[in-house]
């Protein structure tokens, strides 16, 4: 039985770093977005909601392909970045973050949207009458009441990024320590017939994920004991 190689550990660490970064950024983006979607009366609501949901249907490889074209030196975004003296995003950690965010956005926004919707207007009205402004209400009432939804969103976002493969494959370039994550590493093992290593790394990934999910599930139960 082999043991996890340094490369494996590196890939695992990178995976976790990527997933954590993406999850945090997605929450930072998704919370206000879902909130806005729940409460706005703007006529942009439906188009924006559909737009946010779109990445779900795009196969990750397709999404990755278009990102490669757009973010690359010939693409619109890439040209702009080059003009600004910035490095283009493909084959960088930042690029993985951007792509994974795009890819996982709907899986974070959707549960948040549902959770915010389920709160109803009453607690927010009560908070307003107790002197809480909009942002205050969001933080002190909406967030805690939507906690199960926030946890679900985090879990889905995190897990989805850990399991991310197609996008990473397309714009990652498999650079050790930078863009070679656990999923691509396992794939490489499988491809080269190195099943023992593949099994081991898969198992590690599963274990980590299981622990993370268990932790979240415990948080949920503690919270739902309040109902």
């Amino acid at each position, binding site marked *: 039985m082999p043991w996890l190689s340094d490369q494996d550990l590196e890939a695992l660490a990178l995976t976790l770093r990527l997933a954590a970064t993406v999850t945090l950024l997605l929450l930072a983006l998704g919370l206000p977005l879902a909130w806005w979607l729940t409460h706005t009366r703007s006529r942009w609501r439906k188009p924006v909601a559909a737009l946010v949901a779109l990445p779900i249907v795009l196969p990750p490889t397709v999404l990755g392909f278009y990102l490669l074209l757009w973010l690359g030196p010939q693409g619109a975004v890439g040209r702009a970045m080059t003009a600004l003296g910035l490095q283009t995003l493909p084959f960088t950690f930042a690029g993985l973050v951007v792509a994974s965010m795009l890819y996982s956005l709907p899986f974070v926004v959707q549960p948040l949207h549902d959770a915010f919707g389920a709160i109803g207007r*009453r*607690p927010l*009205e*009560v*908070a*307003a*009458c*107790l*002197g*809480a*402004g*909009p942002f*205050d*209400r969001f933080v*002190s*009432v909406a967030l*805690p*009441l939507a*906690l199960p939804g926030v946890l679900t969103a985090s879990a889905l976002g995190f897990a989805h990024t850990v399991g991310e493969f197609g996008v990473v494959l397309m714009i990652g370039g498999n650079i050790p320590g930078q863009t070679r994550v656990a999923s691509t590493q396992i794939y490489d093992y499988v491809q080269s017939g190195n099943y023992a290593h593949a099994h081991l790394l898969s198992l590690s990934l599963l274990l980590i994920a299981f622990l993370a999910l268990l932790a979240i599930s415990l948080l949920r139960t503690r919270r739902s004991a*309040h*109902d």
Partner: protein
Amino acid sequence: MTDASGLDAQLRWSRDGFDLDVALQLPPRGVSVLFGASGSGKTSCLRALAGLEPACTGRVRFGDALWQDSALRVFVPPHKRRLGYVVQDAGLFAHRSVAGNLDYGFRRAGRPAHLDRDALIDAFGVRDLLPRRVHALSGGQRQRVAIVRALFADPALLLFDEPLSALDAGARDTLLGHLETLHATLATPMVYVTHAIDEVTRLADHLVLLDAGRAVAQGSLQATLARLDLPPSLVEAMGAVIEGEVVRHHADEHLAEVTFDGGTLLLPRRRAAVGQTVRCRIGARDVVLSLTPPSDSSALNHLRCRITAVGDADHPSQCLVQLRAGNQLLLARITRRSLHALALQPDREVWAQVKAVALGGQ
């Protein structure tokens, strides 16, 4: 009444099958009660005053502040109106303990030092509940927590939507007493929605009668309740509200002697000291009329009155007799049989007999 420092509202709001069109002028102090049948628009009024219904058009001015003017496109959001709104179903935050709920408005009001929180907590009997989750409260407990939470927010205007309807008689009595004390000490005006007569008579300074989205009558409690033309829903409430001065205490008998313009009354002693002004309500149904001053009867109070008018009551067997004792109007509800047997008619002098115990519970 066009008191520039009170609450002046002109509310107009249509939604499927219900039109609200109400003009309110409420005094800057004391309790204004909105009274009306189920579905008459009481809650809708409160919500509009609180700014929770942006779809409601019109104008709302509170003191110097213009809260809403649809014509001028002014709309102050609820959290800037310094409200204490107790909603019909308590509306406690499920994610906070009772203490956490109380703290919510208090912190946002900047932890006002002048609030005696302990006193309020004890007055409303919620001390034991502080660490509890709100899901583990009974209906009445929730309502009490909601009241204290609203008071903790140090509001400039209190809006109460049937805050006592979930309470038992004992708890209600205690709370009513505390609400009475509060409004005497806090100087915070209160708009109070209820359909309980005793709350009207005990708390209201000002009364607004709502019917199908319109204010059919409004004015001071005394002036409004002694009218003979009120809708049937108010008949039980009818009567006189007398304000008089405590002139003596009969300590051994626990009675207080109160004089007013039209005579003297003995009533069960309350906390009021000699020299203080107290309010007591004489319900129309508690008044017995007789032609001679009764003797050897257990009814302690006899007032000499003159009949000013006779009107219909809600049951054909009965009528309402309006009386004057000094400057004070009284109402008596008696059977038409007695009206005829005693040949009662306007201008006649009669004795109004009132039991002291009937004056007790208020």
